[in-house]
């Protein structure tokens, strides 16, 4: 049987799209790079993992329950979220990680010829989903490492449907205060959807960070994204959600994939929400280790960009993709940032002290030892 005529079957925007290639499993990588351990500091995972309450739920999960469909609309979790934020359960939509809800929103509001607006150096999935869905992503440069609201508004045209703001921004850690977000929302006059992605909001310690859930009453065009992957340590179970006005969420619900969130994820997320001690412990670790990293990197004369969130960016005097390979050979995995349009920067997740020391040691080694080849 010959291969189908892919040239005629596949839309041009799919042909042009560059698929994301996830990294290989740890054992494969360790074998290839010849290291006996691997500190994964590339995905901003919580080094504590899930809170104890969620661990208990996971431990008690009955294998027989795997044979049953989960709640198709995460009923109990939405009830709990509504209770926590004093909103209606129908104002929430749960997805298989926040990445899935990004796709729900874009599918719900965009049609051929429409565009979305976001920053050029931010979480790439908004741009990706728009691109492989056939919509244009208009990108505005960051200003002082932060989203530039004026530039975003300057890009708006009749076909603009959604503006995505990552708050705090991954990877720079900058954030918009409540005042700034309010001003931006006011300027949009409710004519377009404004998505505020708060994947890292639980890490923020700044007192002026917006209470976006309460802004939903005032701005019905606002959609807020949250995730259980970062602070709540449930990245492996893939669960995130969005919140918005009932009318807007009712529209987005039409594009949702039902039953995409498994039962274990729903139960674990439900349990994790009540564990406030976990948040405090994690914040403390991030605070202490970020301080350690910042001081060590400063002593090495390196420029850093660090705001809110469980990560820090470092500018290197070498190619970031070379640094990736060299750090991997010493058992440390970071995120190279050329793909975020930050050439020669790396992003390092904050983790336990042993991992931070391993990273600093490896970095000192690769920067201190002259490479065995001439570079430019």
């Amino acid at each position, binding site marked *: 049987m010959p291969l189908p005529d892919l040239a005629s079957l596949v839309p041009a925007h799919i042909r042009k799209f560059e698929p994301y290639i996830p990294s290989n499993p740890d054992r494969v990588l360790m074998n*290839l790079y010849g290291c006996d351990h691997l500190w994964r500091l590339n995905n901003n995972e919580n080094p504590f993992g899930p809170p104890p309450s969620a661990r208990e739920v996971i431990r008690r999960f009955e294998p027989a329950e795997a044979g049953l469909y989960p709640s198709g609309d995460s009923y109990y979790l939405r009830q709990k979220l509504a209770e926590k934020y004093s909103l209606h359960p129908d104002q929430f939509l749960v997805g298989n990680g926040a990445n899935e809800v990004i796709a729900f929103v874009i599918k719900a509001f965009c049609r051929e010829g429409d565009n979305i607006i976001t920053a050029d150096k931010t979480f790439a999935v908004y*741009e990706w989903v728009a691109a492989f869905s056939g919509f244009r992503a208009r990108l505005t440069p960051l200003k002082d490492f932060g989203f530039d609201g004026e530039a975003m508004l300057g890009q708006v045209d009749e076909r603009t449907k959604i503006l995505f703001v990552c708050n705090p921004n991954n990877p720079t850690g900058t954030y918009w205060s409540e005042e700034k977000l309010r001003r931006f929302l006011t300027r949009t006059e409710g004519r377009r959807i404004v998505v505020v992605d708060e994947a890292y909001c639980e890490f923020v310690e700044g007192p002026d960070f917006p209470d976006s859930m309460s802004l939903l009453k005032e701005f019905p065009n606002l959609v807020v994204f949250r995730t259980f992957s970062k602070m709540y340590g449930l990245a492996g179970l893939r669960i995130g959600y969005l919140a918005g006005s009932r009318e807007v969420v009712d529209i987005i619900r039409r594009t949702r994939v039902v039953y995409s969130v498994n039962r274990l994820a729903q139960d674990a997320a439900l349990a994790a929400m009540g564990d406030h001690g976990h948040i405090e412990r994690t914040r403390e670790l991030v605070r202490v280790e970020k301080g350690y990293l910042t001081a060590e990197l400063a002593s090495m004369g390196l420029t850093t960009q660090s705001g809110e969130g469980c990560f820090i960016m470092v500018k290197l005097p070498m190619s970031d993709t070379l640094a990736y390979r060299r750090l991997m050979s010493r058992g440390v995995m970071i995120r190279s940032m050329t*793909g975020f349009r930050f*050439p020669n920067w790396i992003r390092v997740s904050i983790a336990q002290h042993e991992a931070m020391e391993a990273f600093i040691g490896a970095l000192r080694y690769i920067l201190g030892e002259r490479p065995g*080849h001439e570079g430019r």
Partner: protein
Amino acid sequence: MERAHRETRLATHLDMTYFSLTMSFIEESAAAFGMEAQDAGRLRLASEEIFTYLAEYRKGEALSVETEDGCYYVGVKFLLHADPDSPPPHLPERGPGPLEPGDDLASMGLIIASRFVDRLHMLEDGGVGLVKEKTYPEAGTLVRTPVPALARFHVAAPENEALKHFVRQVAAYYGPQFFPVDFCFPGKVVDMVAQGQYRVLVATGGGAEVAGGIMWRTEGARLIEAFGPYLFDQPPQYGMSEALVDGLLMEIAKTEAFCVTDIYPTPELPHGYFELLGSIDRIKPDGLREARLFYYRQLKEDPGLSVWAHPDLVSFLEQEYERLFLARHIRVTTGGGEARPAHAFFSLRFDRVLSSAILRLLWDGADAREVLENHVKSLRAEGFSDIFFEMDLAHTREVDLTPLLFRQGFAPRLVFPHGGGADMVAFQYQG
């Protein structure tokens, strides 16, 4: 701005009855695409050789001829129609055969054809592609236009006039070893940018003065080739070279490309961005050899790879992988005296402008040694000074040619990470 793509197609047969029809179609198409009569005539002469060559080996088969208006060139493809049910589907009855003049004139036709065009390459189905570039006026007298040092500048794609000025400045400020020969023809560069062959960023000041720039092109899906950065009277402390390289990297960061190679690095190439991939020898116009350095950087995180290698190549690969910090699992092939098809078939890409030719194995066969030897002999006789062989370490049938390549005078020079199905090794003919 890329211009609309134009092409014409002719469905015919590999029969000399259709020779004149096919040649007229090609020549008239070239004229319709704006090619001058002399260039169109040379394209026709090359096409005559190709048609005759194919008609010899694939007599009577259906043939599609496609001509393409590439803005600065006209391309012609002779496409055969492979039968998917007869393995190997498009293996010629025999390889190109001996290439001694008078010994096999049909095979010599390919070499002769290459004299009249700028590039010639074999297609996977055994067909042939030709590229003839249009003639453009040369830049004329090159005079440097001094530019004040710019502490503040803007990096963006230029308009056509600024682009032509930039190209002239490059030719005036830098020696010919620092830029491709296309830069001697500013109008051609404008057309190449319009066609999407080149992309360019220039740094301009408040008065729109062009103070520097960088260019690049896509070579295959996975590799970007860059030239520069070029700076005109700009001091290093203002960071223009870094800004230009950053601009390039940001433009290509989210493309399919896996790495970027700077094939015309200038002294202004900033430190800390590129790694030295290696070097190849080039024959200068005065006949002397010079080492040309290749700098590269990956755009994506290297996921590691398993590659195949013949035992004779393992030490070279181990040395290069260690030097480049590439995580590779080398699997060594073991020759077991397996039966091979009778005839080997190599693809050829010629570039008359660069006087270079690149060979690749399409199908292995028992006569690989003779065929390769004849290719090299003919290419040398035709004056090709740089002869390369590309080996994809994903395919054992290619890897197993290693001893033959060594015996024929080839030496491994460069490893292009992820350059093919796995890493690609470039061998250079050393004589």
